[in-house]
C-alpha cells in the first residue's frame, strides 16, 4: 500500500474512550475520555505512573475489557460494536504482549502448545507438519532456539519466556500489538534485547505498537509518538523527540526530571509533591492540579481539553 495513504488515516484510533469501574460507592475513572491514534507501522508510547489507567486502556482497545463509552476505530470502523464473529476475525490482527512473562504463559503448556494455540483455535494450523513448521519459523523469528520447543515455561529464563509470548502474539500475523510493559519485568541487559527484537519485528512485518510503560527511557527508544497519562486522562501527546526536547505539561516535566542522568553535578529537579489523588469520582478540572506548582484558578471547575496540533497538551498554562 502507498505510504501516504497509511499516514492519512490512522490504523487504530480511540475517540473519547472511557472505562469506569464500580468501586467503593463511586466510579473509578480508569480511562477517562482518551482520544489517541496509532498510524500504520508506527509506535505510540503510553507513559504514566502505576494506576493511571494505561494497562486498562490497552485492554479496552482490544476489547478484553468492555468500555464504558467512546469508540475504538480500527481502520476507521468502530470495533466496539462488532458482533462475536466479526470480533474474532479482527482479533487476529490485534494482539497483546504482557508485562509478566511468568504469568502470561500457561505453566502446564510447552512452548509448542503455547505458540500453536492461536493457530489451532483460529483454524489456521493446517496439518501437523505444517503447524510444526510454522511454530519453528515463529521461534526462529523471535530468536528462540528450536531445542526449546518441548520445554515448559518454568524451565526458561524471563527473556526466553517473553520471546515465547511475542511468538504467540505474532502467530496470527497481526497488524497491531499492544505491548503492556513488555520489558519492565526483565533484567536491563535483556530489556535491550527484547526492545531490539520488537523494533526488528516492526520493521520486518510493518507492525504498529501501542507501547505501554512507566519507563520513559524505554519509550524514548522505541516510540514515534508519546502520550502521557495521568489518572485516566491523556495530559500531553507529542512526537517522541519533541516531547523529550520540549515537555510542556508540568507532570511531563516532572516525569522527565525523574529519569536518572549519570552526572557528577547535582541537577535542579522539579519534584512532584503529594500523592496521586483519588481516582474515584474525581472532580472536574485538571487532575494534576493538587500537586502542581503552577496551578491557578482556571485549573479546576471545568475539564481542560487536550489542545494543540502535533504537540497537544491539556494545561491552562498554554491555553
Amino acid at each position, binding site marked *: 500500500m502507498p505510504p501516504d495513504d497509511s499516514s492519512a488515516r490512522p490504523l487504530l484510533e480511540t475517540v473519547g474512550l472511557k472505562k469506569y469501574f464500580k468501586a467503593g460507592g463511586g466510579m473509578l475513572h480508569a480511562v477517562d475520555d482518551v482520544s489517541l491514534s496509532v498510524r500504520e507501522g508506527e509506535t505510540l508510547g503510553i507513559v504514566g505512573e502505576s494506576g493511571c489507567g494505561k494497562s486498562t486502556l490497552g485492554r479496552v482497545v482490544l476489547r478484553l475489557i468492555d468500555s464504558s463509552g467512546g469508540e475504538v476505530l480500527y481502520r476507521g470502523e468502530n470495533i466496539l460494536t462488532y458482533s462475536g464473529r466479526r*470480533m474474532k476475525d479482527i*482479533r*487476529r490482527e490485534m494482539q497483546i504482549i504482557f508485562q509478566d512473562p511468568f504469568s502470561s504463559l500457561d505453566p*502446564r503448556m510447552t512452548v509448542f502448545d503455547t505458540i500453536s494455540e492461536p493457530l489451532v*483455535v483460529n483454524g489456521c494450523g493446517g496439518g501437523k507438519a505444517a503447524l510444526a513448521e510454522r511454530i519453528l519459523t515463529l521461534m526462529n523469528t523471535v530468536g528462540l532456539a528450536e531445542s526449546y520447543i518441548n520445554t515448559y515455561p*518454568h524451565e526458561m529464563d524471563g527473556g526466553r519466556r517473553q520471546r515465547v509470548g511475542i511468538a504467540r502474539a505474532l502467530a496470527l500475523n497481526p497488524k497491531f500489538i499492544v505491548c503492556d510493559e513488555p520489558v519492565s519485568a526483565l533484567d536491563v541487559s535483556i530489556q535491550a534485547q527484547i526492545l531490539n527484537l520488537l523494533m526488528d519485528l516492526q520493521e520486518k512485518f510493518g507492525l504498529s505498537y501501542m507501547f505501554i510503560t512507566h519507563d520513559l527511557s524505554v519509550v524514548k527508544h522505541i516510540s514515534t509518538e508519546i502520550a502521557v497519562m495521568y489518572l485516566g486522562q491523556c495530559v500531553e501527546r507529542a512526537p517522541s523527540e519533541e516531547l523529550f526536547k520540549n515537555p510542556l505539561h508540568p507532570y511531563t516535566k516532572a516525569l522527565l526530571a525523574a529519569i536518572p542522568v549519570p552526572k557528577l553535578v547535582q541537577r535542579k529537579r522539579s519534584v512532584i509533591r503529594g500523592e496521586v489523588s483519588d481516582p474515584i469520582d474525581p472532580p472536574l478540572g485538571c487532575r494534576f492540579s493538587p500537586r502542581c506548582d503552577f496551578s491557578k484558578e482556571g485549573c479546576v471547575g471545568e475539564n481542560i481539553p487536550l489542545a494543540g496540533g502535533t504537540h497537544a497538551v491539556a494545561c491552562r498554562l498554554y491555553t
Partner: protein
Amino acid sequence: MEDIDFNSQTRKKSRRGEIWRRMKKNRIAMVGLFIFSAILLLTISADLITPYDKAITGSLADRLTPPSSSHWFGTDNYGRDIFARILHASRRSLVMGIGAVLVGITLGGLLGACAGYYGGRVDSVIMRIIDTVICIPFMLLVLAIVAALGPGLVNVLIALMISMIPTYTRVIRSAILTVVGQDYIEAAKSCGTPNRWIILKHVLPNAIGPIIVQATMTVGTMIIWAASTSFLGMGIQPPEPEWGAMLAESKDYMLTAPYMVMFPGFAIALTALSLNLMGDGLRDALDPRLKD
C-alpha cells in the same frame, strides 16, 4: 521436514507416557496404586474366592468366634464369616465411595468452573443456590433425598452425589479463581479462544491439584456416610454386606469381639489411604513444574 514431524510426533505420544514416568518415580504413589489394584482385584474376583452365600448366612453355633484358620477374620454375631462379608461388601462400598465422588465432582466441578470463570451474575446465582443447599446439614439432606426416593443402594448413591455437589462446587470454584486472573487466560481470550476451550485447556488443568486432593480425601468419607444411612435403616438392607454397615453393626461387640470392628474399619482405611497416596502422586505427576 522429516525431523520436524518427528518432533511433534514424539511430543504428542510422550504426554501420557511422561505423566506415567513421573508417577512411577514416586514410590509412595506406587504403593498406593499397588494397594488399590489389589483391592480392586479382590473385589472383582470375590465370587471366585468365597461364595456369596457365605457372606449372608452363618450358623449361630459359630457366632463371635475370633479369627482362626477356618474363619480368617472371625465371625460376627450371626455366625457369618467376616472375611467373606468384607470381600463381598467391597463391591458396594467401592461403588458408593468412588461413584459418589466421581459424579459429585464432575457436576460440582462444572458448576464451580462456570461460577469461577464467568463470575458476575452467573457466579452469584450458582453460589447462592449452593449456599442454600449447604445450609442444610449433610446427613439431613442425604436422608431427605433417600426418604423421597426410597431406601436402597442406588438411591443412597444418588443422595450422596447430590449432597456432595455443593462442597465440590465451592472447592473447585476457589481453585479456579486462583487461575482465572492469570495473564495467560487473557492471552488466550485475546486470540479469540472460545471459553469452553479456555476452561478445559487452561483453567481446569491448572486447578487440578486441589480437585484431586479433595476427590481422594472424600472417598473414605463417602463410604462412612453410606454406612450411616445403612445404620439408620435407609441404605443397604441387611443381610447385604457393606463395610460401613458392618462397622455400625459391630459397635455393640467392640469390647468383646474387637475383630468385628477392626477388619471393616481396616478395609475402609486401606482404600482411603491407597487413593490418597495415588491422588497425591497423580497431582505431582500432572504438574510439570515439579518435574524432578
